[in-house]
């Protein structure tokens, strides 16, 4: 059972560390940046004006997924901006289908699974047919162990292992698109050291595909209580959203129950 006071405290912590310009930095008191402001806006409902006034870069791939209901006036602009981060094709790749279109971290560079999954979640939320392209690329890049690495399933002839965050993003996308989860998340990552961002994303992925969320809740609560140094505000917001999801709230990335 997720403690409601903890969720409230996390949201309060995020709200209290908002900068004077209306955004959030990665750490309290630091310059406002797109990513922490995006997660904070999803957790608190604030910061939308800052987001509308600043370039989002790759965070624009995720904005519709997180803020579809909160910012209807920005939807059209976000969906247009998603197209600007289409990945460039790469020649001579042997280990996977590099002709599949996807999305990149930075314009003019190659497609990678995490930005593609972010774009896919946003396009699903919008009911946009381009979501199928994201699903196709993600499905093609799956590693032999069933999860996802940050880019390729194989590199230089070697099979690569799944990594927690790319697996969480891709699992969430595929589940949202109606595909079964290919990997038992707890079995895959229970023995790995994980920070609060990985734990929050894995919690969301587990919840989305019907896997047990209790282990992730326990680990995330423990991680929040044992962090050395000032907490990252994007991680705090993500944790609030993930724990609220585990407590029965909607998925912040898909809007689905």
């Amino acid at each position, binding site marked *: 059972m997720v403690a409601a006071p903890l969720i409230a405290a996390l949201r309060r912590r995020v709200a209290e560390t908002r900068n004077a310009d209306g955004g959030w930095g*990665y*750490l309290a008191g*630091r*310059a406002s*940046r797109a*990513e922490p402001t995006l997660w904070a806006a999803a957790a608190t409902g604030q910061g939308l004006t800052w987001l509308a006034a600043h370039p989002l*870069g*790759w965070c624009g791939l995720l904005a519709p997924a997180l803020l579809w209901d909160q910012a209807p006036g920005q939807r059209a602009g976000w969906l247009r901006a998603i197209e600007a981060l289409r990945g*460039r094709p*790469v*020649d*001579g*790749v042997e280990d996977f289908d*590099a002709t599949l279109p996807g999305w*990149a*971290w*930075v314009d*003019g*560079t*190659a497609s*990678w699974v*995490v*930005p593609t999954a972010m774009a896919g979640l946003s396009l699903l939320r919008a009911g946009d047919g381009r979501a199928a392209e994201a699903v196709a690329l993600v499905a093609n890049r799956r590693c032999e162990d069933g999860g996802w690495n*940050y*880019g*390729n399933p194989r*590199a*230089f002839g*070697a099979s690569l292992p799944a*990594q*927690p*965050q790319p697996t969480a993003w891709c699992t969430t996308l595929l589940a949202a698109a109606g595909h079964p989860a290919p990997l038992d998340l707890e079995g895959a990552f229970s023995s*790995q*050291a*994980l*920070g*609060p*961002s*990985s734990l929050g994303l894995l919690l969301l992925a587990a919840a989305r595909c019907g896997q047990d969320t209790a282990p992730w809740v326990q680990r995330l609560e423990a991680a929040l209580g044992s*962090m*050395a*140094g000032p907490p*990252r505000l994007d991680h705090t917001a993500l944790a609030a959203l993930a724990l609220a999801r585990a407590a029965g709230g909607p998925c912040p990335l898909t809007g689905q129950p």
Partner: protein
Amino acid sequence: MTRRPTRRLVVAGGIGLGVGLGLIGARRGAAWLRQPRARVAVLRVETYDDLAERLFVELERFPRALERARSGPVVLKPNLVEIHPGRPINTQPTFVVAVAEALLRHGAASVVVAEGPGHTRDTEAVLHASGLGPLLAERRLSFVDLNVDDVVEMSPPFDLAGHGRLPIARTVAEAALVVSLPRLKTHHHAGVTLGMKNLFGVVPGAAWGWPKNRLHWGGIPESIADLWSLLQPGLTVADGLVGMEGDGPILGATRPHGVVVLGEQACAVDATTARMMGMDPTALPAFQLAARCGGTVSTSWIALEGDDPVAVRYAPAPGFEGAVRSEQPWPT
């Protein structure tokens, strides 16, 4: 994923670049062939024990670096990528702390350890799993995640990769002394990854992603030379007690070496280290370009100090067999 040059392309490119640079040199005259004099110290080291004491003594060879360390913030930049048990991917935590403690004993104003891992977004996880996080906490040394640091846009002096401006972590941009702490490794696309290539980690992932693919699209050798010529870390201390050979920098095999290589010019340190790994740096595009940016690669301009630099033949990364030296300048 990057453009994948075939072996033929790499060799042809290297030859073409060499011919081109030679023509440029001919037009500019003999002055181009002169390189700044650089001093590089080689230390034969068996274990990480007592390394701080050894480094404290050896750092006295480089008074300019120590003066900068006393004048303002010092940033130690190790190589922290991912964790694969048994693979020497990351700079050893005890090595990082030894350098920190040696500099603090020399009166460094302040020392932080900083890195922007290029693959995993979960810096907390890789810090913990590598052992670096717990050790830094034990020794009360701070860590800065460069991937989410404030950004300073800086223009590389030669802009070989055509990026125009590079987003650089503010902690690094404002440091009085940046210390590159690479691990000796071969590299699938660059031949070797040492002090200069280690600087990829100062480009925040929040700006250019995970991985920082834009650096690859501009050309890895070009981006290496741009970052080095822009930042010019005042000290490089390379962890070569155990290196990586073969298909580095992640999938290679362990190569015991037993050396630490240090100096005030990263290009010269890297060139010396590459030779000690059995490679000819003049055959590697990154060194050719760094020399064009004012780096010292030629043995004629590098004064070696310390212990005898024993070369160990590293298995090269695929496609770099042509850069293996058939003759070594030192005993093997």
